């Protein structure tokens, strides 16, 4: 079943076209890679998907419960509410808040009690706060962060910050998860561990994942299909094996060494 359809997506900044006529299609439950050289427009695609930028033209359709929703022009928080969550290329945690609060904040969209209830700490406030706390702890346990719940996010080691960012994205209870270079800055051992984790959370949370990554050991290993962007244009799409041997991709991005590896 189709979950997301990007059709003829284009974004220009002034005279500069960052993304041109890009088509991407995700089926429910897929794990798809998006690769390409720096400045090819990968993160711009994420920013268009999550509403940080408004597309110059094109459609983004998200299919939920048999209804089709256009994400075009929606504010980021609306898009998050529809079920799209993301991580950021250069980690954007709430650095001066605790690990626990980072996750609790991301559960905001499901909170039902109103302003008055929160001013007066009514029974419905208490009930829901307890639910939020329990759910947050459960998530933190999955990432082995429950022991560190009162630690400030900025004090976590780098790898754990990346994990917390994923946990926080999951706290919004998404259907589609966008990961922007989750392995950046990790050493190979950490990267291998992260690769397993991504595979595992997809099963556990029944997710569809779109992944930007430079580390081919991750992309080639877990992605079912890969899209390749270069100068804002899709130059290839296919299985890891097809991509690895695609001459255009080798020339623009991979180089000989990697494709042989």
């Amino acid at each position, binding site marked *: 079943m189709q979950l997301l359809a990007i059709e003829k997506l284009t974004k220009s900044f002034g005279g500069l076209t960052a993304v041109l006529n890009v088509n991407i299609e995700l089926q429910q439950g897929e794990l798809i890679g998006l690769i390409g*050289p720096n400045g090819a427009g990968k993160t711009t695609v994420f920013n268009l998907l999550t509403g940080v930028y408004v597309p110059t033209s094109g459609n983004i359709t998200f299919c939920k419960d048999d209804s089709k929703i256009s994400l075009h022009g929606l504010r980021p928080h609306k898009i998050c509410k529809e079920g799209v969550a993301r991580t950021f290329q250069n980690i954007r945690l709430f650095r001066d808040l605790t690990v626990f609060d980072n996750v609790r904040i991301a559960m905001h969209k499901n909170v039902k009690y109103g302003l008055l209830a929160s001013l007066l700490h009514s029974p419905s406030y208490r009930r829901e706060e307890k639910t939020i706390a329990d759910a947050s702890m459960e998530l933190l346990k999955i990432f082995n962060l429950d022991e560190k719940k009162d630690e400030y996010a900025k004090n976590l*080691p780098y790898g754990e910050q990346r994990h917390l960012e994923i946990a926080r994205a999951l706290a919004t209870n998404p259907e589609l998860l966008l990961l922007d270079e989750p392995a*950046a800055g990790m050493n190979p051992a950490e990267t291998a561990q992260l690769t397993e984790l991504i595979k595992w959370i997809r099963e556990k949370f029944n997710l569809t994942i779109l992944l930007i990554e430079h580390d081919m050991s991750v992309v080639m290993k877990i992605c079912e299909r890969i899209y390749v962007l270069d100068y804002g244009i899709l130059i290839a799409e296919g299985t890891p094996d097809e991509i690895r041997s695609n001459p255009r991709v080798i020339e623009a991005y991979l180089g000989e060494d990697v494709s042989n590896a």
Partner: protein
Amino acid sequence: MLEINNLNVHFGVIHALKGISLTVNDGEIVTLIGANGAGKTTTLRTISGLKKPTSGDIILNGENITGMSAQQRVNKGISHAPEGRRVFPAMTVLENLEMGAYLRKDKPEIARDLKMVYDLFPVLSDRQKQPAGTLSGGEQQMLAIGRALMSRPKILLLDEPSMGLAPLLVQEIFNIIRGVNKAGTTVLLVEQNAMMALQIAHRAYVMETGSIVLHGTGEELLQSDQVKKAYLGG
């Protein structure tokens, strides 16, 4: 050429460098590898004078430079291409390169070095008049290295030159580093990409949480089980 003895650095209460010592010999490429937060960048920042050490000595060609300001160190021949490129975004490529030669007064020599940098990075020559902020990540990295070379350094400190670059560009950057070194500049290289770094380095140090835990030739460390397991994914 460069010698560091028992260097300690603190950020408030955090002990970031715990008495590290290392040497870089004339003409070498020495690489510093290790996990995030191990203290690699702090080491470079302390050498170039952006961060003051709590104790320890930094010696350049026999002269103790620990107390010197960053400018004095540039004058003595240390040049640092920092993490994240840090080019001046609103200045043109040419102006950026000129800033690299800020302390120099020998106009003809500067002109020659400028030509040398353009030969090394032809793409920069094509984009002389373009603001540096509009360059791609790879081009900015080249500019950062070129700018660092414009002070005509004896030793070049490079911090994560491959970060965030596509595999094809990573290869190119490492080829350039090797070329710069062949042309006579000593290099101290901090890298996340341990595999590539060890392949081009003469010698290497491994850092963990503020200390140096291992050192040897690039070849030796490539074979070391400890390094393989932690940094090469083997």
